[in-house]
């Protein structure tokens, strides 16, 4: 087991190098990046230096005068020492900005995941036990509608109903207009109020796949021989389903939930942008739009690490949770 983990870790590190190199190359090769735009602006000021001189100066300042490979090695060397440079858009160290915004995203993601679990697992189990019934059709259709809903459309409908027509929530932002005047409890409630719609969007849009996953796995378990045995020996249906079947369904569920834990840190790019919630998703969206290389590099490497971590966690959990799986 330990050998397996070490092997996987080494492999992950290799993959990470490749991924960051590819991303770095892409970012450097893109035309008309932030530096060109800034140089253009600076050069158009009255009495300024010509565009080429500005470009050269800025490139040197931002470390872009190197070739791609040496540039990547420089970046890598600094990244390994935990220095990701200053964000161009936010004009502060990337890590500081990251620290500032990541927790909001994490809290949003954690609440959303919790709600998803509470909704998806019971409904998935019910759908599987009553396969092809009206309930099953309703749940399956509901799950598929959730999957098929484009985030931006659903978020807009929520805004129209709850913000505009009912006036319960604000359209944008994390804090209200008179946030500074409120006492700490009021401030907390204000933020919570602003997070209701984004979290609702996240839950509805992503609850479907977990529900279907539960249903599929539950169905598989219900069709297996040991369930038939359990029924044959005269156990009550309740006991069969909730003790024998459900516990076995938990194996793939725990695996996939464990795998989705690192994803809590990745932020919800689209949802945060739609609601202007200053989490990691929105922050990086803004940075990426103007071609802020240090921030984009950091965010994308971070996402790559999260993906690798979640793959690793789900593979390990798979072996840990299911005693039948043995990894040499």
């Amino acid at each position, binding site marked *: 087991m330990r050998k397996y983990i070490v092997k996987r870790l080494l492999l992950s590190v290799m993959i990470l190098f490749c991924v960051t190199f590819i991303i770095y190359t892409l970012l450097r090769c893109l035309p008309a990046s932030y530096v060109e735009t800034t140089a253009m602006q600076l050069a158009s000021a009255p009495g300024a230096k010509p565009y080429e001189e500005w470009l050269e100066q800025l490139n040197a300042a931002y470390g872009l005068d190197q070739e791609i490979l040496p540039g990547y090695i420089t970046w890598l060397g600094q990244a390994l020492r935990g220095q990701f440079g200053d964000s161009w858009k936010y004009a502060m160290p990337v890590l500081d900005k990251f620290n500032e915004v990541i927790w909001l995203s994490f809290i949003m993601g954690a609440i959303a995941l919790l709600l998803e679990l509470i909704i998806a697992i019971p409904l998935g189990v019910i759908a599987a036990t009553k396969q092809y019934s009206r309930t099953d059709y309703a749940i399956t259709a509901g799950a*598929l509608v959730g999957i098929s809903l484009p*985030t931006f459309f659903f978020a807009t409908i929520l805004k129209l109903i709850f913000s505009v027509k009912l006036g319960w929530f604000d359209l944008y932002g994390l804090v209200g207009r008179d946030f500074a005047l409120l006492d700490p409890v009021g401030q907390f409630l204000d933020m919570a109020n602003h997070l209701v719609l984004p979290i609702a969007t996240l839950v509805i849009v992503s609850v479907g796949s977990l529900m279907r996953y539960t249903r599929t796995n539950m169905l598989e378990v219900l069709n297996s021989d040991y369930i038939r045995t359990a029924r044959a020996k005269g156990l009550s249906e309740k006991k069969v389903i909730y003790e024998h079947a459900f516990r076995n369904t938990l194996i793939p569920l725990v695996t996939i939930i464990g795998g989705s834990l690192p994803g809590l840190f990745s932020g919800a790019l689209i949802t945060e942008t739609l609601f202007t919630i200053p989490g990691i998703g929105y922050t990086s969206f803004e940075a990426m739009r103007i071609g802020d290389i240090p921030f984009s590099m950091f965010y994308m490497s971070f996402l*790559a690490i999260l993906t690798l971590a979640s793959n690793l966690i789900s593979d390990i959990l798979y072996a840990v949770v299911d005693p039948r799986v043995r990894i040499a």
Partner: protein
Amino acid sequence: MQEEKKVELKEQEPYSLNDDRRVKVLSPGAMVVKRFFRNRLAVLGMVMLIVMFIFSFIGGVVSPYGEDEQFYRYEDQMKEYVAAVKNEVFRYTAADGQKFDSVLQAKFQLAVEKKENSFDYKDVVYEMQQEGEDLYSISSDGVLLAIAAKDIVNTEGEELPFSIKHEALKAYANEQESFALNGKDYQLDEEGNIIDGENVIGYISRLVVSAAAPDVKVSRQFKEELEAIIDADKDEFVFVGEDGTEYEYKISYDATTKNWSVKQGKATYVYDSYSKPSKAHWLGTDKNGMDMLTRLMYGGRVSLIIGFIVVIIETVLGVIFGGLAGYFGKWVDQLIMRIVDIFYCIPSMPLIIILGAAMDAAKVDPSIRMFYLMLILGFLGWPAIARLVRGQILSLREQEFMAATEACGIRVSRRIFKHLIPNVIPQLIVTCTMSLGSTIIMEATLSFLGLGVKFPFASWGNIITDVNSAYVMTHYWFVWIPAGICLLIAVLGFNFVGDGLRDAFDPKMKR
């Protein structure tokens, strides 16, 4: 003969209970079809897809409008036309060859307020004589210098001589109907017209009308009409101009400046943007005055075509690489699967956003941009399919029929593409159908963020972009709700069908 009879008899005979012919045997394909059509959701999805395809691909042909045909409408815009003010101060007219400058005007004003009959300035005495209400004549040493009046003589055509003005004002102030000058008779009518025999040579009025723009010429009739309207205290009237067109005017009175400002309603030719649903435009028009329904049809075409092309690219790449990896194993498998791992790790959404922003900055042509978008999406999507194909092939490879193909000496390429791949196809179809849905969502999301398909091309995503302005969101539902519903129906259709196919292909399924 006997033989035939026997057969006939046998056919008429009812089947015995264990006769094979009692069991209707279906081919595997027919089984799949049967199972698929039993699934109500899948059939619903199929209907949704067919509707969307007809809507997008035939709709564009049937629709009387073009994809980016713009519509216009006349819009009434009120423009400042003239300003009118009732004269409340004395206006001075100097006699021929005389001067009546501002110092004298001020002195005169003071004298009037003090109700004196004369004033002096620089040792000269000026005498003023009231000749009627608000009409004075000023003279010194018996010479007439000027007249001061609140009524104004407007000339029609040639400038009137001072003497006529003077006499006319005198007559008007004293409410006479005629006056004589130099042996000629002039008539004055109720409206203040000065008539010389037949011709109207001028008119007297207190209203001063000045044009708001230099190109505006205010006609006599207009002024009279305006005066009448103001006296009647109305705030709206219609007037037929000299060119015969009817204009609408609105009058507003500003009490502090004592001004009437008159606005002319003028039809302006504008884009028919955000017009409500009507007979001509069933779903109204969008920001640029294009027919919404037609945009939706063409948008659907773009969204569906992009979805299909992306999925085709994904599938071709995925099947080739997955097939190679699965069949050859060893270092080929290792290499390809590591590449797949790397692709899996590249965060696709951020990457596409960055690429989109770069294309924005480079001002890539919208049609080329669409092409790039498909390539990027396809190129980022193949690893999932490669994994699926590889996994399937790994298990199929060990089965007996593959050993048989090897024993028969069939070529490797034929073994892979003729014997292995067809067995993967059921899984592949399911995955492709589902990923069509997710690709369409992805494209729509990008277009919504302004990073995907760009104007003038329509796509369901970029139609909804207008909703970014809260005003459009709340006031023009027809701009974004139909597009969202189209999107939802198409994606849902693909997901229902994909789900139904998955169940239908699964031999373990009960039904």
